[in-house]
């Protein structure tokens, strides 16, 4: 499995600008790692107002169990992607990315 290296820091800004869409191979490699994680603890957005508001949740990894909801809600999917990316970056590298 791919391990994040210090060189990958250069792709963070690219993600921040375009979380969904055309990406450099370097960013795509990071995203394949982040987005391919197992279901236990995996992030999911639960739509609370269609096209306007989403709450962040996490799967437990057990079939049929309720989504574990967090307190984070978003009014833009772009913001939500950035928040999830930061959490994953922190888990893989130990680094807190600035807002």
């Amino acid at each position, binding site marked *: 499995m791919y391990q994040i290296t210090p060189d990958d820091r250069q792709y963070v800004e690219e993600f921040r600008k375009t979380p969904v869409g055309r990406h450099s191979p370097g960013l795509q490699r990071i995203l394949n790692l982040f987005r391919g994680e197992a279901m236990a603890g995996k992030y999911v*957005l639960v739509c609370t107002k269609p096209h306007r508001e989403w709450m962040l949740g996490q799967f437990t990894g057990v079939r049929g169990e309720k989504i574990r909801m967090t307190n984070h809600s978003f009014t833009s999917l772009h913001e939500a992607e950035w928040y999830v990316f930061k959490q994953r970056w922190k888990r893989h590298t130990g680094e807190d990315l600035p807002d």
Partner: protein
Amino acid sequence: MKRIMGYSDQISVCPDDTIRFMVNCEAAGDYSARIVRVIHGDTNPDGPGYKEEAIETAVTGRYPARRQAIHAGSCAVVPDHAFLAALGSFTVQALVWPTTPAKGRQGLAGRWNGRTGAGFALGIDEGGGLALRLGDGRGGVAEVAAGKPMLAREWYFVAASYDAATGAVSLYQEPLVPYARTDTAVAISAPVALRLPANVQAPVVFAARHAGVAGKRTLFAEHFNGKIDRPRLANRVLSRLEMEQVRGDLIPVALQSSMLGVWNFSKCISSETIWDDSPNRLHGETFNLPARAMTGHNWTGEEMAWTHKPEQYGAIHFHDDDLHDAGWEVDFALKVPAGLKSGVYAAHVAIDDDEDFIPFVIRPPRGTASSKLLFVLPTASYLAYANEHMVTDAPLAELLTGQVSTMQPADMFLNEHREYGLSCYDSHSDGSGVCYTTRLRPIITMRPKYQSWLGGKGSGLWQMNADLHITDWLEAEKLGYDVITDEDVHAEGYTALAPYSVFVTSTHHEYWTKQMWDALDAFKKHGGRLVYTGANAWYWRIAYHPTRPGVMEVRRAEGGIRAWAAEPGEAYHSFSGEYGGLWRRNGLAPQRMAGSGFTAQGFDISSYYRRKPDSYDPRARFIFEGVGAEELIGDFGLIGGGAAGLELDRADRVLGTAPNALVLASSENHTGVYMVVLEEIYINSPGLCGGESDLVRADLVFYETPAGGAVFATSSIAWAGSLSHNNYNNNVARITGNVIRRFLDPAPF
């Protein structure tokens, strides 16, 4: 959270037909109901928004809310019979292949009265091993257990006998394949003090335990996951040698009078009947559609088709989450009034802040057509995706979409209510693929307003709600149209299509029976014109149940993009005996039908098409009237921001694209999330993504047919999401309109 949901007994009706609606309310009080004609279901604020036409009918009103439950889990049931009433001593045996022996108590074969607690039940206990439970009906229960867990996905011979005179019980748990240092075989005898009552008055049940009745419904519990093959019931204690003698299909003469039931699941495979080979003919029925045409304990691998060696397909695979018919009470019915235009309709029900749409199609009066333009609602594909759980069950969901998965209240409900049944993209709780699906339950993903995690950035639509982009555009263009369903095409064949000159597909018309294929093929051969406003159609060959409307089967045989894979030897449909899998592997690639077939998929953002030299051919001039030479086509839209997206098709002469086909334009610049389909990959290698592979593209295709007809293919699921852009004034809408108006002109091509 979802509080109200329902379903109807039919999906397609004509004026004067009666359609019934069944509703469950999780809230108290009463709910409102009314009929609407659905025009547009996309709530994206960047698009035209939700549109309906209210229809005043006798349905309009308020109805008492009530809870209606679904009881999932399959089994097979032999009704109680006079021959069973005399049962004292007995032997019960079978060959079993448990898939989840550790999940808790599971019934294998028994005659247990769930109301009184009398009878016997051979099953798997909490420890995962075989156990025989006996009940005297007065609260007394005795159990003899093997005490060793069975291995999952291994065949076992299991048997138990009971001597009514002495109370002696014998139990056998014997793996057919032995392993070193893993001994799961058990043979024990033990006396029990308990005596069975004279007649327990109960059916024989396989793969579950009878748990009583609720109203008109029989309830079952302790559903088994796994296969059962050749169960037998004898009216006395058989020796181990005699058990062996009756294990096969030929019962020795000396033992024939001892046999109460010799069930042969390799007979009547296409039905719900379980056949008793004994002269007693204690036939039964399966409940909730367990999987049939499953390889038995004696499958050798020499034959892949169950029709050739049925005796090797004597197993039924039962699941604790199988479902056929929710079986709810009717809440209200609609006698379809005369004079309603053909279209997509729904019963809209609402309580508190929740609502549900129960969709159905109204056809023109039977035997007539009200337009030359036909839009076919792909109800087979809707069934394949019905209530799918990929977003909660498949770790790859986020990789496919290139974005954090988004769930709707309907998805949350389905995650926690597995009894609402699975889709053919799901796996059962034991990990085996789901090959049957039904519409006799609420399908809360088949709804206007529903957004799907799979539908790309933007509107996020998939299947029905995406297809309403087409009806909305037809309305905006004031193009009259009739609507029928896949089920109609399957049942009536070319007769259903003959009154029309233009057949418009859905965005993703993926699942076709042979009957449906032949109907559309005949339509083209009669000069009919085909407008393929989607991608990845004519992909999976399917079968409808021969006698149960609304039930469909798909076997995910070799090749193709598959959510699961059929087990070896299980690629042939039980409903029809036909080989399943891709139409391409059945010799009919989609390029033969529409000049274009599945080539790549990705579910993040969409792209655009660029015109190719063929688009300037005089034969194609009518298509590009009003479109500039340098215009990019569809660099806008509600589905991923472009007209070329989600799933893409391409022309390929080798796969059957007509030699006279023009490739008018191709899409380009797709993201790295797009990947070439698996059926194109023989040796996997780098370079198969968007931006790397030439196979990641959608081809805009046009060709004339020998009968004076023509075919136009957009080759993209996202195409319809661009139709409404700029108040329906854009080059995707213009091209689509140019094509349909010319196709409606009877002048031959």
